[in-house]
């Protein structure tokens, strides 16, 4: 299946193994991996290669390390108590000695238990902490992006041009936010379907009489841009904007049968 091959060669699986994807993206990859054995095999091979690379970095003395770790894992077997040979001491000294040792042992046991319980909850909290830290960082980044978009759209030099779906895609829509002060357009392409592989959306500025389309750029990396907002320069005296579907790299002039959305700039 060609689609799966494309998926594999897109490079998303490497990012998945690194842990560089968002939680949602990761979950999606996990689903793919459960569904397609070839995806799972690929992930295993990537993981194997990365493990080998990391292993190559480790200072080499695994035996010493394993021994040291094992000694921490398992409590040492109880020390065998050697009964002292009967001596000249009177019995009551022995009894007191034993009693004291037992009291001490019980005390130590309690301390040990308390200590390990504390250690355990501390390390649980630490792990939780680091997971939460990661999530906060992700959320902060999303918020930062959203703030930027909001600030841009609030600029009073911006005019908003809604583009309506055309014959090629009646349900599609898009919005152009045009700042003719700094000659920038922001294309909100959330209402466009994901372009098929090998195709890309191209944005056109149009002037009427005579009808002249001028390309202002491509919506590259459509599937990766989560906000679906693209920034393109536009120094034209645009009277309308249109978006067409073109082969990768774009075209010199728009393919009118593939005109997805179109909208005119309101007269000032």
């Amino acid at each position: 299946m060609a689609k799966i091959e494309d998926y594999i060669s897109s490079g998303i699986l490497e990012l998945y193994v690194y842990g560089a994807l968002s939680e949602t993206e990761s979950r999606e990859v996990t689903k793919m991996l459960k569904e397609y054995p070839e995806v799972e095999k690929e992930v295993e091979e990537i993981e194997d290669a990365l493990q080998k690379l990391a292993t190559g970095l480790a200072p080499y003395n695994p035996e010493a390390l394993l021994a040291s770790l094992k000694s921490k894992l398992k409590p040492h077997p109880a020390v065998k108590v050697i009964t002292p040979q009967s001596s000249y001491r009177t019995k009551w000294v022995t009894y007191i000695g034993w009693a004291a040792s037992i009291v001490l042992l019980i005390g130590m046991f309690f301390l040990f238990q308390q200590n390990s319980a504390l250690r355990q909850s501390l390390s649980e909290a630490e792990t939780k902490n680091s997971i939460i830290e990661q999530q906060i960082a992700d959320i902060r980044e999303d918020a930062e992006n959203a703030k930027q978009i909001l600030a841009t759209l609030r600029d009073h030099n911006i005019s908003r041009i809604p583009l309506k779906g055309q014959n090629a895609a009646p349900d599609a829509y898009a919005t152009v936010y045009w700042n003719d002060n700094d000659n920038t357009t922001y294309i909100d392409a959330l209402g466009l379907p994901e372009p098929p592989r090998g195709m890309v959306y191209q944005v056109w500025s149009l002037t009427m009489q005579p009808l002249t389309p001028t390309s202002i750029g491509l919506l590259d990396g459509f599937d990766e841009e989560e906000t679906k907002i693209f920034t393109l320069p536009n120094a034209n005296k645009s009277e309308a904007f249109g978006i067409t579907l073109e082969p990768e790299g774009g075209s010199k002039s728009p393919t009118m049968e593939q005109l997805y959305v179109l909208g005119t700039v309101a007269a000032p």
Partner: protein
Amino acid sequence: MQQDALIVELQKGNQKAFERIYQLYSESTYGIIFSIIGEKDIAEEVLQDVFMKIWENAKSYDSSKGRFFTWILNIARNASIDKIRSKSFKNKKQNLAADNFVDILESKTNFSATIDAIGLKKYIEVLKPVCKKLIDLLFFKGYTQKETADELEMPLGTVKTRNRACINKLREIVGN
């Protein structure tokens, strides 16, 4: 799957399963930690902490969120970063700048028997500078795709495809 069963056993608190997990992952985890910390004894300490965490928090691993290896990788990176931020580390190692993986591999002479040392050194030799940066940020430093794109001033999609090419080369060399 054998691996899945092993993780289930680990989550139940089976010590044999833990030992197996240790055998499977300790060396690579040690490598990750060492690449961040750059100091053998401290890296060893952190490795032990990391495996204690794996033992104690095994239940919090959720396979739908990602690979077990990735989970360990996250714990290891976070523990190492916490360590180098800690006061005791800063006091002790003020001037210590951890090398990146390329420097470490280049200067190494002793390798574990489980890996192809010559292959790895060869890999480093032919590795493009951009690959060195990508792998360092994404794998060893735990950057997200977006953070990497910003740091290297590269479009998001390019990070993905370039990195794939870098890893393909690695697989060619160290693969079976």
